[in-house]
């Protein structure tokens, strides 16, 4: 007997990963839960400012507008942490879900080209989370500004920094998901990789001081700090060691590519 033949197309692997992602109910539910948590935090914060607007004196209101607090409400630091947590976990489970059940062996026996499998998985996860994150950031921006419009404090997308905030917040999602994926591929265990992703993405920046040059550079090289740089207006201009938004975007890019490369390589090299 000779095997029937067909060309090995990378697009088939993308389609297969797409099927795998969406045939799990948990994918939709965890994205929905993450979105509701982020929107809840941000709209809640905006509503708080709306509700107590009457109690602010004239100078506080002026400071609110001058410091673009509308943008801070559009995607708060707390919601950014939630986004990183949820997306890091989704990325990790996209890989560990296959290891937990042993499905990875079925997958890799069907497609021995392991690097192609992992590259396809990384691309699908990146695309889905980028669209999800950007849409979420946009909706969050619009909803929070509608709330603030009630006090004439809402901003439009045309406001300086608004678009960058939406993009930076949205793209934080695929960066976190890819880091989760890489840690999932290394640890091959769901709980361990989720804990590792949380530690790496959210805890590490806390331990790095802004005051000394070396720790400041390391701190600025963290994705969550890069997001704060891109989203947090003006404040970073006043720190001891200022850095550019271009540098922050570069941090996103390097982490995303590095994480994807790690996930691809580690699965390629090890016994499965």
């Amino acid at each position, binding site marked *: 007997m000779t*095997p029937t033949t*067909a060309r090995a197309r990378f697009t088939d692997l993308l389609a*297969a990963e797409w099927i795998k992602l969406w*045939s799990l109910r948990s994918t939709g539910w965890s994205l929905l839960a993450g979105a509701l948590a982020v929107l809840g935090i941000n709209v809640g914060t905006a509503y708080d400012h709306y509700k107590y607007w009457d109690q602010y004196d004239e100078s506080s209101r002026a400071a609110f507008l001058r410091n673009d607090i509308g943008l801070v409400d559009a995607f708060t630091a707390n919601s950014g942490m939630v986004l990183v947590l949820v997306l890091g976990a989704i990325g990790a489970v996209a890989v560990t879900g296959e290891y937990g059940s042993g499905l990875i*062996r079925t997958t890799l*026996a*069907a497609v021995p*080209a392991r690097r192609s499998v992992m590259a396809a998985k990384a691309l699908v996860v990146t695309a889905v989370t980028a669209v999800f994150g950007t849409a979420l950031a946009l909706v969050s921006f619009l909803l929070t500004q509608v709330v603030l419009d009630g006090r004439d404090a809402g901003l439009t997308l045309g406001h300086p920094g608004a678009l960058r905030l939406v993009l930076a917040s949205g793209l934080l999602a695929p960066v976190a998901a890819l880091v989760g994926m890489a840690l999932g591929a290394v640890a091959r265990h769901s709980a361990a990789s989720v804990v590792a992703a949380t530690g790496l993405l959210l805890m590490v920046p806390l331990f790095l001081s802004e005051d000394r040059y070396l720790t400041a550079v390391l701190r600025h090289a963290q994705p969550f700090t890069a997001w704060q740089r891109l989203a947090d207006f003006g404040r970073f201009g006043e720190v001891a060691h200022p850095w550019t938004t271009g540098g922050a975007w570069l941090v996103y890019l390097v982490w995303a590519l590095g994480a994807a490369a790690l996930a691809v390589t580690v699965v390629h090299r090890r016994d499965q």
Partner: protein
Amino acid sequence: MIEANELTKRYGSTTAVRNLTFTVKPGRVTGFLGPNGAGKSTTLRMILGLHAPTGGTVTVDGRPFRDHARGLRHLGALLDASEVHGGRSGRSHLAALARSNGIPRGRVDEVLGEVGLAGAAKRRIGGYSLGMRQRLGIAGALLGDPPVLVFDEPLNGLDPEGVRWVRGLFRRLAAEGRTVFVSSHLMTEMEHTADDLVVVGRGELIAAESLADFAARSGSSVTVRTTEAALLARLLTEQGAGVRPVGEALEVTGMAAARIGDLAFAQRLPLHELTPRTASLEAAFMELTADRADHHAGATR
């Protein structure tokens, strides 16, 4: 055709598989037998390119399996029926596998029907019985219509009807000219299914031969009772038989009952019993692997 040559796998200081050399031929069902922990799964994983051998080689139709960009059309495998994600439906699981290898969607429903899961295709795998998972795994192996098929313990969890169906399927696949390699730790599962046997224990090859040869080799014996046990024992030993006293009787190996009777008659030794005992294949298998089983019940280690 699967060809293993001096295949060796070590994990740290543990040697899981040592110098395995065997050939699995097309057109036949080959049983891969060994007690638990004998290295069967490790060997299968090396065949599939999931684990890299520490030494030696293994090829599928002349090529290391990992050299293929896509595998399902070259080799179909059921490794462990639990190696699926419980959250997906059976159809989604197969659809993803099929799509990854550029296999038309229609083939998914075809194999689902073939293994008798058409009715359960939309249900989540988490709700499947072990037998249904085995059928799903077999469906996955059949997806690419491959010339080589590998099944790891496929009969686990199947009901008697399922076992009969699987045996018929293996026979049919072999009759179509495919290479069929089936692992098991139970000889009874294999003696009605396999044409050839590869037997391993503690990672080493014990036998690689046809089932018929294995059966012939396996220790048949003749139980003999006589009033002149000592005389007869000496006589038979001189003629090349193995003799062992068992109570008042003798257990004779390596000599047919008729020859024993003739020899006794020629020396006018009275025989009170002459009973040939054909050892079951299971007993032969147990005997061959007994000293190489890794996990003895109650054994001190």
